[in-house]
């Protein structure tokens, strides 16, 4: 069997919990991690006689997502009921959207390994989340927590435009960055704020679409990648052995690295969607739409573009910086404070800052963007050299002092005085005639001399000047 002959076709359904204070149809708070069944209003319990009241914020959030993904916004859209029984679904139906979703026909462009890729967005619709069931192992008891019930979601459905697990992960990362930029979702995959279902099918290259399986509720990029790769392999193996893929919903077991059947097509629900008579159609005026459009922030793609054109950053650097809103913010604040060398600033953030802190926490990093800018300014005016800069950076991690204060206090100023350097070099040549001899045969020995000078001068010597003086002196005829 060879995967080479096969194409994988993947479409995604992403559920984003919207970051509103209260639920989509009740005034109950959406706070995560609270005691079970405390974040619940009578509407969330589905008590007899209660009615849903739409949280208007949800509309604005959904429209923002739609505009960011270049969708058509349906200015008249409606909620529908999706009917099924489950203990964590209090009303026996989920309020969602069916025939008239709020956004349709969008697209998302992103980069993977330097190549640009486009995925079509079929639709975005609003809905309420269900509660959470837990089943006690070994006991005939199931517990239901309705804190999550009624949390607003948007479901973002893509076209089956992705051909590999890597593409899916890149798509999801870009999508996650966008919802974070928009401030509509906290993107937390572990807590389930951003979860993905993937529809996977395989076909011989160029053949018609194969039967798909839906992989449900995968909660990390790694698991998504592993699950898709396993599932594609499973389908190919099955077909090559003469079998047929059954349309079904499957779950991923990360411990065993396999997918397994959750329910078959025959067991699938008939959801009996119909317009929810408790909720009038939602009508969005041109003015409202324009107002929301004006609130849209600069998105990752625009930032990448600008970083390349305005700051001459590489594709890679601009991708890393723009991938997270907090990192981009950090970068831009730092540039505002010291704008002469954006490329150097970018390097420091990518190599040093992001080694010390997670991208999402960079906003709380001890070395604020302004402090970093101070350090880079010292580098730029040659007050310190690169090596000392790293020492200063280390010290900045544990104090609140500015780079300049640290350099002054610790006497780390770079020595560019050629007299001082010359005297060290002269002594070195005198004391090591053997090394000088070696140098003449092997000019690479220069490095050893540089190292010794730096060591003697505690790293503070200006490396360019050290180099110049060494080359000059070593090449002089012996006296």
């Amino acid at each position, binding site marked *: 069997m060879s995967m080479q002959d096969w194409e994988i076709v993947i479409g995604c359904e992403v559920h984003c919990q919207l970051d509103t204070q209260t639920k989509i149809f009740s005034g109950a708070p959406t706070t995560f991690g609270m005691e079970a069944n405390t974040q619940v209003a*009578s509407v969330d*319990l*589905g*008590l*007899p*006689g*209660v*009615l*849903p*009241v*739409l949280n208007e914020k949800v509309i604005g959030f959904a429209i923002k997502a739609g505009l960011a993904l270049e969708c058509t916004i349906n200015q008249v859209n409606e909620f529908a*009921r999706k*009917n099924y*029984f489950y*203990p964590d679904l*209090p*009303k*026996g*139906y989920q309020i969602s959207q069916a025939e008239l979703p709020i956004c349709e026909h969008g697209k998302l462009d992103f980069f993977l390994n330097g190549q640009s890729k486009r995925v079509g967005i079929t639709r975005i619709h609003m809905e309420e989340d269900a509660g959470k069931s837990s089943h006690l192992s070994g006991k005939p008891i*199931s517990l*239901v927590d309705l804190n999550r019930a009624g949390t607003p979601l948007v479901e973002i459905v893509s076209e089956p435009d992705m051909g590999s697990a890597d593409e899916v992960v890149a798509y999801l990362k870009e999508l996650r960055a966008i919802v974070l930029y928009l401030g509509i979702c906290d993107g937390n995959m572990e807590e389930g704020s951003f979860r993905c279902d993937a529809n996977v099918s395989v076909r011989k290259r160029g053949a018609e679409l194969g039967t798909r399986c839906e992989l449900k509720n995968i909660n990390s990029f790694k698991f998504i990648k592993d699950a898709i790769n396993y599932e594609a392999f499973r389908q190919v193996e099955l077909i090559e052995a003469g079998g047929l893929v059954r349309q079904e919903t499957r779950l991923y077991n990360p411990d065993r690295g396999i997918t397994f059947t959750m329910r078959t097509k025959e067991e699938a629900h*008939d959801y*009996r*969607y*119909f317009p929810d*008579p*408790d*909720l*009038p159609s939602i009508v969005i005026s041109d003015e409202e739409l324009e107002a929301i459009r004006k609130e849209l922030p600069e998105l990752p793609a625009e930032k990448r573009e600008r970083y390349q054109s305005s700051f001459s950053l590489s594709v890679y650097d601009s991708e890393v910086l723009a991938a997270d809103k907090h990192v981009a913010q950090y970068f831009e604040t730092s540039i505002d404070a010291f704008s002469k060398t954006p490329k150097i600033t970018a390097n420091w953030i990518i190599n040093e800052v992001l080694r010390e802190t997670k991208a999402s926490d960079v906003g709380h990093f001890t070395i604020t963007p302004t402090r970093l800018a101070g350090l880079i300014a010292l580098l730029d005016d040659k007050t310190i050299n690169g090596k000392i800069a790293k020492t200063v950076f280390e010290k900045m991690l544990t104090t609140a002092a500015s780079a300049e204060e640290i350099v002054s206090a610790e006497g780390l100023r770079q020595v560019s005085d050629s007299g001082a350097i010359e005297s060290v070099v002269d002594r070195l040549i005198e004391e090591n005639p053997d090394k000088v001899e070696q140098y003449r045969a092997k000019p690479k020995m220069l490095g050893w001399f540089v190292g010794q000078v730096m060591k003697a001068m505690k790293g503070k010597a200006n490396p360019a000047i050290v180099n110049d003086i060494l080359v000059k002196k070593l090449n002089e005829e012996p006296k």
Partner: protein
Amino acid sequence: MDLSFKALRRSYENGKSVASVLEPLQAAQKENRHNAFITLNAVDYPDFDPSKKLSGIPIALKDNIVTKGIRTTAASKMLSNFIPPYDATVVTKLKNAGALLVGKNNLDEFAMGSSNENSAFGKVLNAHDSAYVPGGSSGGSATAVAANLCAAALGSDTGGSIRQPANYSGVVGLKPTYGRVSRYGLIAFASSLDQIGPLSHKVEDAATLLEVISGYDKNDMTSAKKEVPKFAKFCEQGVEGMRVGVPQEYFDIDVDNPHLSKGVEETIRASIVALEKAGAIIEKVSLPHTSYAVATYYLIATAESSSNLSRFDGVRFGHRSSSAQTLDELYQKSRSEGFGEEVKRRIMLGTYVLSAGFYDAYYRKAQRVRTLITRDFEEVFQEVDMLLTPVTPSPAFRFGEKSEDPLQMYLEDIFTISCNLAGLPGMSIPFGESEAGLPIGVQLLSPWWEEGRLFQAGRQLELSRGVE
């Protein structure tokens, strides 16, 4: 004893205590001879407060309107022990207006029925003759008013459930414009059709009650941001020059439809004469899609109810089967045991109507016909100010007469249903009597938000019968 609001107020103003009015009523309520009440409330006797519109007025509530701390059953075994933690908006409004909420009325289970024979708490007897049905689904409310057990009651009307029992029981019954009264706290049957409304002795009392319970409610997105007129004022305005349409389709009824009984026909004729005498102009009009109304209604109402009743699953509240071993059994047994026959029939019908492959043929088509029926009314109200029709083809029938044939039962709603499909206001007013001495009413329908016209014409009909 005259239990009209005016008479009660007059006695309070003359120094009668609330207790002296209420005590004899409570004795009769306790006796519950007609089984009109499921639960009686503990009422203390407040002092009369003239600043409150309904001070000291004893009012009963259909038991599908939730009351905080008071059992609310919807006449179902499913909710036989359900004590709501909140008040319906109409309940809050009544309390604020000083009304005394005396008890919870029997009804057809979940408001599904036209005879009040479908109650887990037993049938309700007609106050005029206990061999006859009181009508449904607000049968307990109609009977409680007709038997003088309260001054007025609130019912709910999805396809005629206020107007039809009012008609069978000889009281006034009003279904307001859809969106006039908040549905928050009404246990839903069919959300796009349900509307709470008053049943009363007098037209003026219905107007006063409507004034109290109407208005936009932030808890109900289908309630309308419409100003609430002083409805009682309309009762004094007469019908001079008012154009009243009589839809021909309600008289030339075809094979599917039962014929109009003699008593009903005579009552209608008499009401036409009475209104003409008072200066109204009677015109023949046409509502061409009338014959589709019953079918349309039973597709939409059952579809919505199949979904609305899904929350009664035995998980959080209500009846839970004690013999269920698995999750599926929990649902199947709790619902099989908790719901009555008619409710199950409608849930199954509604589930079928919404199923994959049938949705377009049934639900979607029914919605289209609903639009046509609404358009009929829009057009007819270009020509006339209101409509006059029978409420039902015949007066109250005997127990068991139609309960074996659901279709015959559904056809009882033929004249009341279109009003709900279009969201119009409609009122049933007693105006005649059958040979057996049972009451017969007439129905008035007005354009959306024009309930005032119903009170104008309704009061005129009362006057012509010599009602004070």
